[in-house]
């Protein structure tokens, strides 16, 4: 018997428009409850929605980046259900004519890529939030109501929890690259709803699907991966149990179910079965006019699609010789990738620059909880640093010190100036270095004797002397030159 986990994903992405989907109220996170509302987004009697054109354009740009067909004609539909966080008791969405459909996204899996089909991507308005922080009653915060949401529905092409996570991250990176969403998990900008089933191929029998569980409202990659893994295990266990009892565990027999995820307990929670499925009574919203996409508008939007992460990844490997393990850090976000290329353009050793990006600059970014680009170090300075190290003016350690010092010092000075000031610039002057060697050897006669008299101790003694010279020079001496001069002096003494 062969079993293949089969997963389709629905991802909701909040678009980073200044104002809401159907009114001009600004979108703002963590504002005073109900302070970011107007009669339209709270569905007052008599109000009418007006489409946010920017949100529509953002959604189309995502559709294009997902290789979707963009509809020439789309309309808005009302999806009806009663819930306290939904002011009108219907949500404006797109039902049978989404603005884009039939695309794909290539995601990095192992050494290669895997193609995930995109069924559709459409726009809708978000609901508010029920707040249960008071005893005896619940509050409703409608600040989020009417925020533009893009729903991206994938084909069931994902086959593991790990792939689900990769796909989620790739979508996050994509919308960030496109500049249409901050995709900040902490702020609830992305929510995942995986539909998980197993494809079962019994030996010699016909294949079938187990029931589909749709896990609702997952808001972190970790929760997504854990929930998918849990459901796969759950299906497997149920399948075994049913088979042992001679009962079918199939989509046909059980249908589709909605499940919640209890993250702290690490397990799913049954919500409702197919019998209780809602009838959303979709119908075209008579308050909104259909959107007609013409050639001119579409070609303008096509220009807004930049090089996508997966393409950039391949190009960086090819063009800069970056290896697979390192490339992720560099193309993590569009601005950082651009910064890297700008530094290359200024002129420096690419290999050293890569080392800095995955080491030095990543550490500073992590410490500040930002991206490398957000460190706001200009490409020119990054190139200068790489050059200084590559040409031997700075040791690797000195590089780190110079950058740390530069962050606290006046940033108008070059790294070379900073290095000089804090005494980290390597001294390659042979005369000065000779003096330090003389001094060190005079002060450590035993080591000199060991080096000269005992072949077994020679290497260790020479190393000790080199360390003493570096100490004397406060790290400014070029270690290679120091080594050469010590050997030369020892040779002369033995002479």
């Amino acid at each position, binding site marked *: 018997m062969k079993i293949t986990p089969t997963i389709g994903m629905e991802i909701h992405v909040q678009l980073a428009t200044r104002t809401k989907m159907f009114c001009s109220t600004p979108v703002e996170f963590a504002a005073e409850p109900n302070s970011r509302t107007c009669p339209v987004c709270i569905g007052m*009697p*008599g*109000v*009418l929605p007006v489409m946010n054109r920017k949100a529509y354009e953002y959604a189309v740009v995502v559709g294009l980046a997902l290789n979707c067909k963009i509809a020439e004609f789309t309309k808005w539909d009302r999806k009806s259900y009663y819930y*306290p966080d939904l002011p009108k008791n219907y949500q404006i969405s797109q039902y049978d004519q989404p603005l884009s459909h039939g695309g794909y996204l290539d995601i990095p899996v192992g050494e290669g890529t895997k193609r995930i089909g995109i069924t559709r991507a459409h726009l809708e308005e978000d609901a508010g939030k029920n707040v249960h922080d008071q005893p005896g009653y619940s509050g409703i915060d409608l600040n989020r109501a009417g925020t533009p949401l893009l729903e991206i529905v994938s084909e069931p092409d994902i086959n593991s929890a790990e792939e689900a996570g990769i796909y989620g991250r790739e979508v996050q990176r994509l919308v960030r690259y496109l500049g249409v969403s901050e995709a900040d998990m902490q702020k609830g900008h992305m929510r995942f709803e995986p539909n998980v089933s197993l494809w079962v191929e019994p030996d010699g029998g016909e294949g079938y699907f187990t029931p589909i569980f749709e896990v609702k409202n997952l808001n972190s990659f970790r929760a997504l991966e854990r929930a998918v893994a849990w459901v796969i295990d759950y299906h497997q266990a149920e399948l075994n149990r049913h088979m042992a009892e001679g009962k079918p565990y199939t989509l046909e027999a059980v249908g589709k179910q909605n499940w919640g995820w209890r993250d702290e307990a690490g397990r799913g929670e049954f919500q409702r079965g197919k019998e209780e499925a809602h009838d959303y009574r979709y119908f075209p919203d*008579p*308050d909104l006019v259909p959107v007609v996409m013409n050639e001119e508008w579409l070609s303008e939007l096509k220009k807004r699609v930049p090089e996508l992460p997966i393409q950039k990844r391949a190009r960086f490997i090819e063009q800069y010789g970056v290896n697979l393990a390192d490339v992720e850090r560099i193309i993590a976000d569009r601005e950082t990738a651009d910064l890297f290329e700008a530094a290359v353009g200024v002129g420096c050793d690419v290999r050293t620059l890569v080392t800095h990006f995955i080491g030095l600059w990543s550490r500073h970014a992590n410490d500040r909880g930002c991206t490398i680009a957000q460190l706001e170090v200009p490409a020119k300075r990054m190139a200068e640093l790489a050059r200084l190290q590559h040409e031997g003016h700075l040791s690797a350690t000195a590089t780190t010190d110079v950058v740390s010092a530069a962050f606290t010092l006046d940033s108008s000075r070059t790294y070379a100036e900073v290095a000089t000031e804090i005494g980290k610039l390597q001294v390659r002057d042979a005369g000065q270095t000779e003096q330090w060697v003389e001094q060190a050897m005079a002060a450590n006669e035993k080591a000199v004797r060991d080096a000269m008299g005992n072949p077994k101790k020679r290497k260790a003694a020479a190393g000790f002397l080199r360390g003493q010279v570096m100490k004397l020079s406060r790290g400014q001496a070029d270690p290679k030159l120091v080594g050469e001069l010590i050997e030369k002096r020892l040779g002369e003494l033995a002479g």
Partner: protein
Amino acid sequence: MTGMTAGEIRDAIAGRRMSSREAVQRCLSQIEQFDGQVRAFLSVAADRALDQADRIDGRLAKGEQVGVLAGVPVAVKDNMCTRFGKTTCASKILAEFASPYDATVVAKLEAAGAIIVGKTNLDEFAMGSSTENSGMFVTRNPWNAECVPGGSSGGSAAAVAARMVPAALGSDTGGSIRLPASFCGIVGLKPTYGRVSRYGLVAYGSSLDQIGPMTRDVRDAALLLDVISGHDRRDSTSINAPGTKSAARLDEPIGTLRIGVAKEYLGEGLADEVRAAVESAIDVYRGLGAEVVEVSLPHSEYAIAAYYLIAMAEASSNLSRYDGVHYGYRTPEPDDFIDLYSKSRAEGFGAEVKRRIMLGTYALSSGYYDAYYLKALKVRTLIKGDFVEAFKKCDVLACPVSPTPAFRIGEKIEDPLAMYLGDVYTISLNLAGLPGVSIPAGQSEAGLPIGLQLMGPHLQEERLLQIAHAFEEETDWHTRVPPMADAHAA
């Protein structure tokens, strides 16, 4: 003054022959005198109206520029949001709703200097043809207090007919301006769908609803339309065209005129005296040199079914927000939140509203959508096509507004189907989104007014009103005053 039209009052105020305060006071005293009997108003904002009038008078005294309706008292149907007072839709569920914003039409009226003296009664959420479905009280026809004023804009029609205000706004989803205008002997105009912003009009059937003026004569209707029409960026369905300039065109010669008569509109079920009034009105146009052409609107027989499916489906969705959580009446002791929804709605809505919500919900349900809602949309397309064909042969269509003059209160209220069938001549126009006007054109033997309906092509309100005005020039039906108001207003 109670005999004066809005235009005449405007001129008198502008010419300093009358103050706005005086105009408002006279309306208030007329309301005081007659509204106990007619019950046209749900609320009267007397103090605010007098303050506003004083402001206009003050500006005039200083010689400031004022709007085209400066100082003129008007009323608005209580399904249009106003920042002042309540906006109830004559529903218990919205009895306490105070809007934080003004409907676009309200803002436009006030910007033109009009004084809103009060808000008028209607069938709850504009669902009805008699104003008997009001959740508050029944409005009576000023021509005969035993009869309905028509609906759903019955309060606005009765207020204008009884000379309590010279003009009012109504809304028309399936005839709700034209029918009460006809029953009360006044002029009622339903503009092209999208001509007047719906922003702030509490929705009933969103794809059909349209606000329009209800006045004593065509000139006032033109005056008001010119003020309230025009594109509104807050209403996506509002047509991107400048407002009308119909008042200026009224006196132009009507030129070559072809009046279309649709045989489907003069068939079975039409009362003889209504038929006679429509035929003699057509004769008036013949006398003006018009050519009368017979046209056909072959899909008319499906209009009622299509209309009620579409209107109820939209209503079921539009009214779902009144749930006791967000807006409206809230049941005092619910068991849980589902119970809160169902009890609040069960107790807050009236019978007709509940009937329409249930029918509309059913029509949109999975498995029925194609058979009902989708089919209704197809019929709607066919009906639009009928009009396009008809208007190739004529400038306007002339037809009845209602099969009978005003009926008696209680006569049809137990028979919703009979009530729905009374809309047979008005609803096609809403389905097609076209403009139509009802003008006084006769009187029944019992002394009740009979209206003539003129329908025009898309965005042709200016021409339509010009043709309606030509009829007024030849007849005096629009000058007749209900006996009640006449006896006292001398």
